[in-house]
């Protein structure tokens, strides 16, 4: 929508030049596609297997994409060339008309409107009695000029709008290829699985999640919070070990996890009586993270005044503010919940026999560290987690601090909500309590078995 003065100053030949360059770009891209095809042919000549077939499938996608783009570029260039050429002639005509009237002494207002110039008024004045007649003649010419310029500008504007709209539409049709890379595709599925609530997978993949969770920290579930903390700690320790563990775990997880597939964490806990309790024991995991984070947290916090929010208040807050300790509880609270589950289990397991012992000794370090899966203790993850836990347990205060620092406001709020809605948390824990009854039955089982043997004996007798 150029104004009249803009139209006069315009250089639509630039559109034509641009169109020519676009057309050349289309040719370049076409040549690129041809060269691409040559390279691909050279590769295919020396390669034949499934990977080559997959490669050629992808090549066909690129070929089709490039052909489509070349076609669209050609179409856009054609549109711009046609519109640009029309605008060139229209602007030229507008300029010629404008120049003609100005040359005749008329004044051209930017409306556009042609008015009588000083020359005409002088002539009118000089005409004496014929002045009005002469003025009418001049005014008629001026009005005609106004019409010409207005019409010319309208046509130019219409052409501009049509061309611009077509070009915008053509731009919208250009859709870049989706990138194929190792990163995105791998990460996304993991998130989905986690969201599904498969605790086992989630816990095991906690390391993988660490990076992601750091961003997410919204703390959907208490357990998630726990995971975040643990993950962060683990990240500090070493991602390499975690990754290795992941790979092994993932594979094993799939085998193990598929059959069970517990929907709710609460449900999961009770089901896996033998193996599950160990990994799930939140107590160990909760304790673990604090120990490791302690060093980084203290060092970072004092050094980096950068945490202005926590800065001045953070020391007093930790000591005095109820919220802070609560936050510690909350992050731990995630652990607390898990712990709640674990704790009941542990005592039960003690009496039960093997389960408790397993947890305390082998699993205690490894399983708890992962917080997740009992599988870890077996794998290598246990090694990492175990050492950290020992020192961690005594330092609960540090845990709280570390959580606060690591999980800035988000975790705190999440914790706050948990605490604020203690009833909710308790309710969640309560469903877990049913686990207790489940465990005791285990104790009962052995006695039952003995009588069972006795019974058959009399029957046999």
């Amino acid at each position, binding site marked *: 929508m150029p104004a009249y003065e803009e139209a006069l100053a315009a250089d639509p030949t630039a559109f034509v030049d641009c169109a020519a360059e676009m057309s050349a770009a289309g040719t370049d891209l076409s040549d690129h596609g041809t060269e691409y095809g040559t390279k691909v042919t050279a590769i295919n000549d020396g390669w034949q297997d499934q990977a*080559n077939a997959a490669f050629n499938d992808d090549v066909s996608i690129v070929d089709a994409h490039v052909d489509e783009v070349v076609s669209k570029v050609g179409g856009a260039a054609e549109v711009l060339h046609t519109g640009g050429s029309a605008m060139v002639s229209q602007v030229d005509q507008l300029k010629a008309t404008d120049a003609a009237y100005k040359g005749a002494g008329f004044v051209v207002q930017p409306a556009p409107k042609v008015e009588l110039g000083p020359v005409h008024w002088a002539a009118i004045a000089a005409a004496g009695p014929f002045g009005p007649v002469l003025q009418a003649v001049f005014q008629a010419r001026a009005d005609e000029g106004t019409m010409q310029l207005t019409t010319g500008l309208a046509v130019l504007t219409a052409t501009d709008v049509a061309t*611009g709209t077509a*070009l915008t539409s053509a731009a919208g049709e250009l859709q870049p290829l989706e990138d194929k890379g190792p990163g995105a595709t791998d990460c996304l599925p993991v998130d989905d699985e986690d969201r599904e609530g498969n605790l086992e997978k989630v816990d095991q993949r906690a390391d993988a999640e660490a990076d992601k969770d750091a961003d997410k920290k919204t703390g959907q579930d208490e357990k998630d919070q726990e995971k975040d903390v643990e993950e962060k700690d683990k990240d500090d320790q070493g991602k390499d070990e975690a990754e290795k563990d992941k790979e092994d775990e993932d594979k094993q997880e799939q085998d193990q996890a598929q059959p069970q597939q517990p929907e709710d964490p609460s449900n999961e806990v009770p089901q896996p009586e033998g193996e599950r309790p160990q990994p799930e024991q939140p107590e160990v995991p909760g304790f673990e993270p604090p120990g490791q984070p302690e060093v980084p947290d203290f060092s970072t916090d004092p050094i980096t005044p950068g945490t202005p929010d926590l800065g001045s208040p953070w020391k007093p807050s930790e000591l005095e503010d109820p919220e802070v300790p609560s936050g510690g509880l909350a992050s731990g609270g995630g652990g607390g919940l898990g712990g709640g589950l674990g704790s009941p289990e542990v005592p039960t397991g003690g009496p039960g026999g093997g389960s408790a012992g397993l947890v305390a000794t082998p699993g205690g370090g490894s399983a708890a560290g992962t917080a997740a899966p009992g599988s870890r203790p077996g794998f290598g993850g246990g090694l990492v987690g175990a050492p950290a836990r020992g020192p961690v347990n005594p330092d609960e205060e540090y845990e709280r601090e570390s959580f606060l620092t690591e999980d800035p406001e988000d975790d705190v709020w999440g914790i706050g909500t948990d605490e604020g809605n203690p009833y909710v948390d308790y309710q969640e824990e309560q469903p877990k309590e049913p686990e207790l009854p489940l465990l005791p039955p285990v104790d009962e089982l052995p006695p039952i078995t003995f009588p069972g043997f006795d019974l058959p004996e009399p029957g046999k007798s």
Partner: protein
Amino acid sequence: MDEVYMEVEQVRGGGGDLQALAPKAKLASDRVQAPAQTAASSNGGFVTGEAGVQWHGRFDAVTAGVERRVDWQGAQVATSADELEACDKEVRGRFRALERRIPARRES
């Protein structure tokens, strides 16, 4: 696939060629950038001028996408060549190991 076959050096070189070719896709859009900017700046108030710049932006994204894709393909091809070569060496080593055992038994 009925047949598994690879000229490792040829394929690896082809992957490198693809990666070398990939950036050239961008040249197609690069040559449009200046004319599009000029057309927009020298035709103030024209819808077409801004549309041309916008179009170039999209076109640039498309060529960049082609560049990344072709580069990725080249990397995959080179990787496939490396993997197959490594596999080939491993198999060769195993055959040689077997070969050593066989004559030993015969001698005995």
